[in-house]
């Protein structure tokens, strides 16, 4: 075993070109990577599949320079991959890490990964370069009013009509649909076969006539959307892979997506949040003594520190497992369940430690840390069903991980 963090081999970036490029990156980041972008990325860390507004803008600028990440593992040049030198990549990584964000874990990567594997040649040429340049951003079109946890029961219909499909129906919880360029849309193309076998996946231009987007505001204060399709014509070339094979692609995308959930970017997110709490407890006095001297608070903080370490180890395990060439189904499920429930606990303990102050919202007088813990408390509610309900995740862990028999249906 070896718990050393994987550090890449040293590369000499201290060349003249290297120094010049580093300066260029720094100047760019000084200007474009605002605190708001960083915060938006952090908040969004549990939803790597959809791109929030400021990040869309930032990615577009990165993409325009060939610095965006989906192609980092190496897309062929003909699909927009830019072969940057090792020195450049190292500098980009280092500079962005120094600002607290990762490089190489950008947005659009999940859709790109499916398209590069299953998309037609035409689709690859049309979409991949634009993803690489950050010109395209996706909103997910999976969930419907009657298809959430049981996603495969979705009812929205697409019917072939010449070179197009005519799409009708409604999606819900389609976050950022109002500012994204495309919808990653799952629809039923064959209603007469078992439900998993009649689903297809499309890339739909959200500017298409007949699409109406209505806001839904969540308890977390974020906007998500309902998307209504009324006789929307979608060109058949926008079909991803084969007709009626969509469920396989979606499952694959969900699996990839889940890897990022709960753990977030390895090492980030959760632990800095905990550090903020420890700092708050150390600096805030109640009854003349710092909160951090209260034995109950100490027990709670220590417990969270342990649980945050477990999150880190679970994430690393998943990453290591993938790196060895495996598909980390059970490992990712464990990581998601653990990380997301820990997020809920951490926010709960955080508010509890803050006492009466814990109920204050952003913008209020006296609010600690501008209400970030309170916002997280509300936001975290959806983590235990979003992206795969934790009941299903646990069933999956037991059946795939320990070979328990599936529930008879």
């Amino acid at each position, binding site marked *: 075993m070896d718990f050393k963090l994987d550090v890449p081999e040293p590369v000499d970036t201290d060349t003249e070109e290297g120094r010049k490029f580093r300066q260029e990156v720094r100047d760019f980041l000084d200007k474009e990577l605002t605190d708001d972008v960083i915060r938006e990325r952090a908040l969004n860390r549990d939803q790597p599949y959809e791109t929030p507004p400021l990040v869309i803008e930032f990615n577009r600028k990165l993409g325009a320079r060939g610095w965006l990440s989906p192609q980092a593992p190496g897309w062929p040049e003909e699909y927009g991959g830019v072969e940057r030198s090792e020195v450049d990549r190292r500098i980009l990584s280092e500079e962005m890490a120094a600002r607290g964000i990762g490089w190489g874990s950008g947005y659009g990567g999940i859709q790109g990964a499916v398209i590069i594997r299953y998309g037609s040649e035409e689709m690859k040429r049309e979409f991949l370069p634009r993803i690489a340049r950050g010109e395209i951003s996706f909103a997910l079109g999976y969930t419907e009013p009657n298809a959430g946890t049981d996603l495969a029961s979705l009812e929205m219909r697409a019917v072939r009509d010449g070179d197009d499909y005519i799409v009708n129906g409604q999606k819900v919880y389609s976050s950022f649909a109002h500012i994204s360029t495309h919808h990653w849309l799952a629809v039923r193309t064959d209603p007469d076969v078992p439900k998993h076998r009649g689903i297809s996946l499309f890339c739909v231009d959200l500017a298409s006539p007949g699409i109406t987007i209505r806001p839904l505001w969540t308890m*977390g204060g974020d906007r998500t959307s309902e998307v209504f399709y009324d006789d929307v014509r979608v060109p058949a070339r926008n079909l991803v892979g084969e007709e009626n094979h969509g469920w396989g692609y979606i499952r694959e995308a969900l699996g990839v997506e889940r890897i990022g959930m709960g753990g977030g970017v390895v090492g980030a997110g959760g632990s800095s949040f905990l550090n903020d709490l420890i700092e708050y407890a150390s600096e805030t006095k109640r009854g003349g003594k710092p909160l951090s001297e209260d034995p109950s608070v100490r027990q709670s903080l220590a417990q969270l520190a342990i649980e945050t370490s477990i999150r880190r180890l679970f994430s690393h395990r998943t990453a290591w497992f993938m790196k060895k060439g495996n598909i980390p189904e059970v490992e990712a499920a464990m990581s998601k369940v653990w990380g997301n429930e820990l997020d809920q606990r951490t926010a709960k303990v955080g508010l*509890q430690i803050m006492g009466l102050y814990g*109920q204050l*919202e952003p913008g209020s007088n006296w609010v600690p840390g501008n209400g970030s813990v309170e916002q997280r*408390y509300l936001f975290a509610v959806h983590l235990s069903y979003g992206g795969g309900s934790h009941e299903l995740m646990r069933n999956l862990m037991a059946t795939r991980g320990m070979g328990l028999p599936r529930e008879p249906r």
Partner: protein
Amino acid sequence: MDFNLNEEQEMLKTAARDFLSKECPKALVKAMAQDERGYPPELWRKITELGWPGLVFPEQYGGSGGSFLDLTVLVEEMGRACLPAPFFSTVVLAGLFILNAGSEEQKQDLLTRVVQGEVILTLALTEPTAGYDAASVEVEAVVDNGNYIINGTKLFIPDAHIADYLICIARTEKGTVPEEGITAFLVDAKSPGISCTVLNTIAGDKLCEVIFDNVRVPRKNIVGELNQGWAPVAKTLQQATVAKCAEMVGGAQQVLEMSAEYTKERIVFGRQLGSFPVIQQYIANMMIDVDSCRFLTYEAAWKLSEGLPCAMETHMAKAWASEAYQRVAALGQQIFGGVGFIQDHDMPLYFRRAKAAESTLGDSYYHREQLAQLLTRAESSAS
């Protein structure tokens, strides 16, 4: 032992539920969270006409002389409906304090007007120290020419922005123990030197910061005895804590019922959601939490009604309800999933209130520690 309400209480409960489901729809509740005042005066007028503000006050002040248990029944229904009205501040906190501590004249004056719905009151107790013990009272009142001058900040004061009078709990003397030297003042909310700012809160209730900057209060506005104000505060806190628990019971009960209903309607994997054993375990755990909160709360309320000591029961009820209501609300959110996460849904109302209710009037750790003092004190005096 009788776990049923009596006939009048059953009638009160039914009437309250019917009235609130008609007059206090959830759309109104949500609108009021955004509203500057935070309550609909028209609804408040109707509530006054029903006699609710007078329920617990003696007849000589125009009230109907109901018991604390009657009040508990009513407040539970308010919690169930998430009623946005200055009832808790005016009646439970300030009204009961006046009943506990006030002179006959003050009672005649103020309680009569409370009963008539003519005034909105609140108790200005908590401060940036954020505690409910006497040591947390640091706002000072110093005597000046027969008047008192109050200086300092009160924080988390409910409905102060719409109150006609505040009962300000201030320190008038450094006693040998924190409980000594505390005095209650009736303060006109429009007095020069008072500034009030509404805080943004998770429950969208109207808690305020109230700054006292050389606020002059005449001596006759002392409620109760000079320097002896802590005892009635403590008594009022006990009553308010039990009432808060009742509010929580009402909310938790509603979450349980709406969640159970939803599991019957919602179809997942071709079956009713409620037919899944894991969901049944959730509902069963919610039932345990709701019933346990209810019984602990009503035992304390019954003892208050009967004039029996109930410090232990009060600590138990609040320590337990603070966590149990949050557990119930969290399971409700899990059962409703995405649809319950939308701000327009009813679930967030309860999820948010469960958090607010936990921290208000002492959280679980605080009440368990108080309880531990009683338990180990009994032990050491017995041995």
